[in-house]
């Protein structure tokens, strides 16, 4: 009888310590995973890559999302990585393709980058159009816009745009990076210039 009790106590102890251990390990692994994931979202991590540092980072440094009156910033990941867990994992998965191109050296000089700029910019515009400019809206929630505080031009354009079902990226392109060549009707067309329509697609005009 006493022996059964002892075995029973031992078994319960084992189960509890196993559950406890799993719990602690779970916290460590999950915490570690998330910490590593967050670390890959930092500006320091992004520009540790030469391609990012010499090209896009230099352009971004002249924009309002890099420095401004109050010092509230939006770094690379704030615009290019979704905040929600699953979309973030998906984006991180696709980033493996960027590692491949890092190894291939596809955009490792400003000239190579410039040659690919139009393609990459349009890809990013399409992505933001698909998710209704989710990354912009993480900070700029337009349901809380105070149109009385906005300048006349902004106030009019925002109200008209939202009434027509437009999203941020439909107008706000090239706010943190230089735009690719656009044919704006200045003299001869630049080689490889995109038609002016790409900035204001007919469907959303």
């Amino acid at each position: 009888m006493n022996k059964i009790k002892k075995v029973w106590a031992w078994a319960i102890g084992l189960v509890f310590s196993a559950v406890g251990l799993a719990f602690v390990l779970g916290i460590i692994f999950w915490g570690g995973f998330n910490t590593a994931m967050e670390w890959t979202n930092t500006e320091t991590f992004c520009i540790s890559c030469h391609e990012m540092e010499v090209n896009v980072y230099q352009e971004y440094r002249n924009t309002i999302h890099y420095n401004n009156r109050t010092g509230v910033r939006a770094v690379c990941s704030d615009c290019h990585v979704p905040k929600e867990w699953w979309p973030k994992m998906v984006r991180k998965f696709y980033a493996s393709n960027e590692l491949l191109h890092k190894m291939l050296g596809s955009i490792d000089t400003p000239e190579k980058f410039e040659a690919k700029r139009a393609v990459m910019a349009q890809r990013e515009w399409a992505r933001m159009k698909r998710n209704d400019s989710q990354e912009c809206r993480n900070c700029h929630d337009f349901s809380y816009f105070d149109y009385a505080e906005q300048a006349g031009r902004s106030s009019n354009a925002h109200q008209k745009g939202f009434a027509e079902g437009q999203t941020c990226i439909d107008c706000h392109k090239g706010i943190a990076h230089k735009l690719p060549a656009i044919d704006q009707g200045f003299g001869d067309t630049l080689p490889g210039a995109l038609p002016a329509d790409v900035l204001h697609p007919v469907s959303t005009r």
Partner: protein
Amino acid sequence: MKTAIQKAVGIAALVLALPFSASAEGVKSLRETAVGGAEHPAENYREIRDAGGLLPRDFVQQPPLVPHSVTNYQVTLNYNKCMDCHSWSRAQATGATKVSLTHFRDREGQELSSVSPRRYFCLQCHVPQTDAKQLVDNVFSPAPGL
């Protein structure tokens, strides 16, 4: 060979600059500092605000003023932000003033089908305004008949 030429040019420049360096002491900039002296400390940057309407011209030939902020507007080899609203194809959608037809002419007066590339840098002539204090008095007034 190249360095010898560079040296010669450098020495020539120094010799030429000598007489001017003395007189430069007396010359003052608009900000009342000597031209050769230390830089005037930078004033606070003035944010350009939207004027909320057209600004009147001070003389007939004056290029129209920009009545709105142009901070961070991109004007690069690839893209000119001004034309995103002021081009003929965009003006109706944005309600902006269209680029003047005089800008569709080359310097020989030949009419073009697109804006002349010599007009690319809009802000060379069309400037935004701030409420900054005038550095010198100005009594200019337009001709009364115009």
